């Protein structure tokens, strides 16, 4: 997932706290996109300041901040456009206390250009020749943003809420490509419930299906007293795997009858 420039706000499925602002729209069909935090007209600064996000421009001025389930959104009312940042690009977020209170964000893999007229500082490790070409895009190592705290408000609570909202939403959006062991063993099931492995019938990961827990297995349905129907899905090479013999009709359903 990459950062995208948006020209209108998405609709959100629900709000964590009541928000009295006509800019925030709730739609019944806003598919599972809960809004965890919202704040209008927040000053956002970027480091380095001259950085420009491809297709969007410089991060300068005030933005409405939306921490939604799907992405972090900065929306500018003046320019009527915004940035939608998926959480997998937010490597780190933190509460900054000096020089001012704010929410610090570190983003990666953002297509950036540095404004041709300015050289940020002499310590930049990129070759100066590349920076002078405004059209040149290269994924930078780091883009940092700071959402400044509200003045005259309960600053700490607001920043804490923003920090928590970001933490929660980041946890809701784990990377899919990572094969986090133990988390996605069910995805590779292909609908087939493994009752035992080749070598260990009673080893770790083994589970019996009984009348007591059959409800937990969504790919198995009990029909009447003497039939269990298992949903078999095709494996990648088109075969039904080990249940080939048991399939009786064109539907990919294996039926088992209790033996008398």
């Amino acid at each position, binding site marked *: 997932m990459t950062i995208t420039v948006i020209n209108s706000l998405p609709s959100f499925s629900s709000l964590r706290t009541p928000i009295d602002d006509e800019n925030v729209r709730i739609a019944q069909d806003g598919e599972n996109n809960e809004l965890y935090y919202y704040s209008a007209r927040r000053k956002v600064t970027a*480091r380095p300041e001259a950085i420009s996000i491809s297709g969007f421009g410089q991060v300068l001025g005030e933005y409405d901040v939306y921490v939604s389930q799907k992405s972090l959104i900065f929306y500018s009312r003046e320019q009527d456009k915004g940035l939608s940042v998926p*959480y*997998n690009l*937010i*490597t*780190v*977020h*933190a*509460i*900054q*206390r*000096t*020089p001012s209170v704010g929410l*610090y964000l*570190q983003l*990666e893999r953002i297509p950036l250009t540095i404004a041709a007229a300015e050289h940020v500082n002499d310590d930049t490790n990129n070759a100066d020749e590349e920076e002078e070409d405004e059209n040149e895009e290269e994924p930078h*190592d*780091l883009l*940092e943003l700071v959402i400044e705290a509200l003045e005259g408000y309960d600053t700490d609570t607001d920043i804490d809420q923003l*920090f928590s909202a*970001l*933490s929660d939403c*980041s*946890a809701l959006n*784990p*990377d899919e490509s*990572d094969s*986090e*062991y*133990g*988390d996605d*063993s069910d995805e*590779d*099931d*292909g609908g*087939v419930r*493994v009752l*035992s*492995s*080749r*070598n*260990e019938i009673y*080893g*770790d*990961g083994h589970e019996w299906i009984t009348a007591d827990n059959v409800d937990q297995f969504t790919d198995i349905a009990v029909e009447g007293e003497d039939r269990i129907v298992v949903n078999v899905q095709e494996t990648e090479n088109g075969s039904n*795997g080990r249940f080939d013999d048991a399939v009786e009709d064109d539907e990919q359903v294996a039926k088992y009858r209790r033996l008398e």
Partner: protein
Amino acid sequence: MLFFSFYKTLIDEEVIVELKNDMSIRGTLKSVDQFLNIKLDDISVLDEIKYPHLSSVKNVFIRGSVVRYVHLPAAVVDTTLLEDASRKEAASQAAKAGGR
């Protein structure tokens, strides 16, 4: 879930998290979740000159997918126990996958 449980036993210990973008952050482990997202308190960045960005920050949330290494104090880890547990976990994962 082995390492999730393992990290929970290290809460309040000082660790150094090395990120895939080469930044290293030292701090006290305050929380971890099943995706190994990490929250650290009282952080300091190891190469502050190269990374002045986080010098004014006290607490961070680090996304689990950007972590390359977590450096732990040797004294708090029973490496033999951890190796045994990892081996068992790996074997049971392989068995689950092999049964298909």
